């Protein structure tokens, strides 16, 4: 990320969160911006490898879809909570994560955890170990609607 862009992002962040626009507060803002820049430029020089997570429209588009999924599966889990506990069929299985682009594997695992009813326990060699409340939600995961959505949104990157 170019330094100018980073400057505007951080300045906007300060202005939005503070809400006070008198000289003293703006001065504090300028001071902390300077401090953050000094530290981060020093860190980048020491570290060398700087990788940024892209936080653009893609994420927003994906989140809207994800919130829909969360609603649907929450209602499923809610039924289980208030229903008989014998309806539970907890199971653990490996789901391949190689179907999504490499840079989004963490996002995929996080989304699996975020939708109630499925929980990613481990990532190993491109497989995500998933624990699910019901066997059928594991099957749905394997059919790959979520993986398809992710690779659909992120494939344009390359």
């Amino acid at each position: 990320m170019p330094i100018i862009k980073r400057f505007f992002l951080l300045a906007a962040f300060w202005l939005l969160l503070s809400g006070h626009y008198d000289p003293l507060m703006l001065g504090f803002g300028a001071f902390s911006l300077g401090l953050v820049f000094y530290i981060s430029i020093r860190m980048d020089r020491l570290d060398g490898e700087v990788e940024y997570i892209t936080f653009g429209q893609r994420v927003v588009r994906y989140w809207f879809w994800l919130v829909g999924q969360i609603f649907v599966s929450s209602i499923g889990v809610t039924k289980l909570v208030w229903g008989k506990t014998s309806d539970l069929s907890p199971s653990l299985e490996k789901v391949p994560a190689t179907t999504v682009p490499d840079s989004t594997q963490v996002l995929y695992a996080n989304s699996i955890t975020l939708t109630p009813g499925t929980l990613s326990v481990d990532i190993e060699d491109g497989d995500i170990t998933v624990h699910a409340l019901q066997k059928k939600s594991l099957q749905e995961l394997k059919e790959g609607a979520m993986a398809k959505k992710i690779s659909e949104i992120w494939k344009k990157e390359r």
Partner: protein
Amino acid sequence: MSILDYFSAILLAGGVFFSFTGAIGLFRFPDFFTRVHAASVTDTIGVILIIAGLLLQTSFDLNIIKLLLILAILLLTSPTASHALAKSARHGGLLTLAESNRSNDR
């Protein structure tokens, strides 16, 4: 009360209901892994609905951005925390319900 207040009340009530469901599930579900699932209901839909309800309560000002930031940060951190819990339980040798039933049968 304006119409927005009614919407906000419905959203808040929904959020409270789902958070409560998560708490009940925490007690009713049989083992550690299934309980994490119950807690994730509170983490996700409960938070989303409550923050949506609060968004309708504010006038159009900076608080909206603060609330959205809270939502974004919660939606990023809570699955990470659940994953960390489950992973360490798994690596620490805790068996899932199905696995421990199988080893009891033998």
